[in-house]
């Protein structure tokens, strides 16, 4: 049933977007005001992923607000490094923006030698949204709650196996954070794609994984997997019946957030304009409602606050990466 209403909400947003794209005359703007030519949004992720989907959902709104084209360009590869290096090389005039996620804040520690450094080469513009993950186990494991899972892991250190879509990905980091905060030892089993990891959890090949709630919703409802808890600080809108991990492991939070940054040197006035516009868009009731059903909570922060948030996130994951001894890259 969730899905039906979700479709309705999303479709409304899309219909609104459609009218924007095709019909209405766009308001005229003073010459010379930003932006007076098309803006490129660099998505350093592959088409179809959440970073791409939300960039493409945001673009038509920005287009309407600014009466300018906002073009989404995918530059995927090397876990966001390629697109990030591409965006760094662009002119710092506000006409190239980049979508970022916690992949970037984790990579900051994983790839200390990358030619593009997040906080050195980019400025924070605005956050977009944040999405919880859900901790699921194979149905035959036997743990029904997070506490039972922790007890099980403590009884047999290293025996439980958790899947992820590869070292350094948000799903892996959520697991490592869980290990550290709950004080348990579990074996990490990496996959190339989260979908391959998912099928092995459902098939009972591997014990558990952290995954996207919307993807897992149907599998939890049909008892293909057991949903233990969601990873936000408050309950998830998609799976409101599940507790949070933080209820058993105080302070635990592992979410996937998205935001916008721009190459360093973009005038403050442009950053502020973009920040207030994006904040206005993500706060629109219909946008917020549709996103919530997709498991994404709109995030609003000033550029300064967003910078603090990024610094804190980098520090948080740096600790996890170091303790987990994830092999750093070049």
């Amino acid at each position, binding site marked *: 049933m969730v*899905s*039906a209403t*979700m*479709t309705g*909400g*999303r*479709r409304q947003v*899309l219909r609104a977007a*459609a009218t924007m794209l*095709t019909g209405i005359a766009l308001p005229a703007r003073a010459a010379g005001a930003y932006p007076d030519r098309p803006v490129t949004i660099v998505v350093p992720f*592959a*088409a*179809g992923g959440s970073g*791409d*989907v939300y960039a*493409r*959902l945001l673009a038509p709104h920005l287009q309407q607000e600014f009466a300018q084209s906002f073009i*989404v*360009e*995918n*530059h*995927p*590869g*090397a*876990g966001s*490094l*390629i697109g990030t290096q591409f965006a760094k090389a662009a002119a710092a005039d506000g006409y190239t923006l980049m979508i970022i996620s916690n992949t970037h804040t984790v990579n900051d520690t*994983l790839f200390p030698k*990358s030619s593009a450094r997040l906080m050195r080469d980019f400025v924070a513009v605005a956050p977009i949204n944040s999405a919880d993950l859900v901790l699921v186990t194979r149905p035959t494991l036997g743990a029904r709650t997070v506490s039972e899972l922790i007890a099980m892991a403590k009884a047999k250190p290293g025996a439980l*196996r958790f899947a992820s879509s*590869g*070292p*350094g990905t948000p799903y892996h980091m959520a697991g490592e954070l869980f290990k550290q905060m709950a004080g348990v030892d579990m*074996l990490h*089993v*990496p996959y*190339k794609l989260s*979908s*391959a990891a*998912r*099928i*092995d959890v*459902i*098939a009972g*090949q591997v014990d558990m994984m952290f995954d996207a709630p*919307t*993807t897992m*919703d*149907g*599998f939890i*409802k*049909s008892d*293909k997997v057991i949903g233990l808890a969601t990873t936000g600080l408050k309950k998830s809108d998609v799976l409101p019946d599940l507790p949070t991990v933080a209820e058993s492991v105080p302070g635990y939070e592992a979410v996937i957030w998205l935001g916008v940054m721009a190459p360093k040197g973009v005038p403050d006035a442009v950053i502020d304009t973009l920040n207030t516009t994006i904040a206005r868009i993500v706060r629109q009731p219909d946008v917020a409602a*549709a996103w919530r*059903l*997709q498991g994404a909570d709109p995030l609003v922060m000033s550029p300064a606050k967003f910078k603090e948030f990024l610094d804190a996130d980098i520090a948080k994951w740096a600790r996890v990466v170091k303790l987990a001894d*994830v*092999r750093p*890259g*070049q």
Partner: protein
Amino acid sequence: MIGQSLADLMQGFGVALQPANLMWSFFGVLVGNLIGVLPGMGALSAISMLLPLTYTMHPVPAILMLAGIFYGSQYGGAIGAILLNLPCHPPHAVTCLDGYPLAQQGRGGTALGITMISSFFAASVGILVMILASPLLVRVAFSFGPAEIFSIMLLGLIAGSTMSRGSPLKGVAMTVIGLIIGVAGTDVNTGTQRFTLGLTEIDDGVEPLALALGLFGVAEFLRSVNRIQEVGSATRMRLRDMRPSGADLRRAFLPMLRGTAIGTLFGAMPGTGPTITTFIAYALERRLAKDPSRFGHGAIEGVAAPEAASHSKTQVDFIPTMSLGIPGDPVMALILGALLIQGIQPGPQLITEHADLFWGLIASFWIGNVLLMVLNVPLIGIWVKLLQVPYRFLFPSALFFIGVGVFSTDNNLFNIWEVLAFGVFGAVFSALDFSVAPILLGFVLGPLVEENFRRALLLSHGDLMVFVQRPISAGFVAASALLVVVQLMLRMRADRGLKIS
């Protein structure tokens, strides 16, 4: 269960035959076909180009159009593989092996006709299997863990590496080179970069499209530039050569059935990918053939079987894609992304909650394949005429489209250098009479073999017995061992025979 499925399917035909939906489906097939024909442009580029168009559409026509683009471009890709030796999709590399020699002998029209018939037949069977056996397919999908995938890939690697023409030793050598190229990139287990030469662009490994287009198309161009006159004249053809003859059809019939069966089997195993399917289908035909030496020189069976296999695999693959939300390849991942943008979550609930979409899609597969057939019967003549374009125009423009195609995979200029490098590499090796197809096989299967081997061991906490304790895996391991033993025995017998005589 089946009765219900049939009723649902009828409703699906109702949805797919609505004039607006039918129009979008046709539009998708047409555009996909036209883009697919361009060298270097495959389903991936076609869908990513047209994806934004679907954001403002109703979900049903949007998905029908994308599916149309998908199989339209898949068929279009076969045209490039046969006529120009340009596989825009790695599975088509196998089609090049015999399709291109056929085109050079002036029988490109025959090859295209057989491809079309095989695709249509295999897709129809695949659709029937989807309808009749989808719950079974889902169950089979879950019995394939890392140990099973490793064992089946091992079999594929062994069966495939000796299938190319010429010396088996050369075939194995090329497979090993493919394995080594496949190792480059970030290690899935540790995140360590291997053989990336310090280039961030190789962190995700070598681009498969660049490898396929370089080794086949570009290498062929490089080898032909000095003898353009010769090459050009070989492709002159008469109109009556454009239709497959009765003899061709008879010859292609059993390979088409076997290819379809292989594709259907592999379709039930998510994570196996289409490339291994076509290689195995080809290897099987070569082994069953009375005269294996014809393969690689224009055997029509070598076109019919892999094309049938890839189309039935694609259809059957839709079950895990839609009902488990598990994409079989990047193109499927893109289609799932399109569903997500429409607010539709692929998963077990999709078939029940969006019955109109699911069954409409299945019905439109079949309708789309009919449209493809109707569209291409008159077009074959035109495609084949492409070859009469003088090579001094054809080669440069093909190279241009290859450049555009590989660039558009992830908007990166580096890919163009990759194509060029593999083109030179492929030209050198084919000049030395090495077949390049096994490189692609090693490249595609190598990472899968390694990844699943290590994962199976991780899951078993290091116990190697896992590969023989699990029955399905044990079966494939036994088959691989048998294959090696048989190969050796044949060799020995041949040697002894030589000595006696």
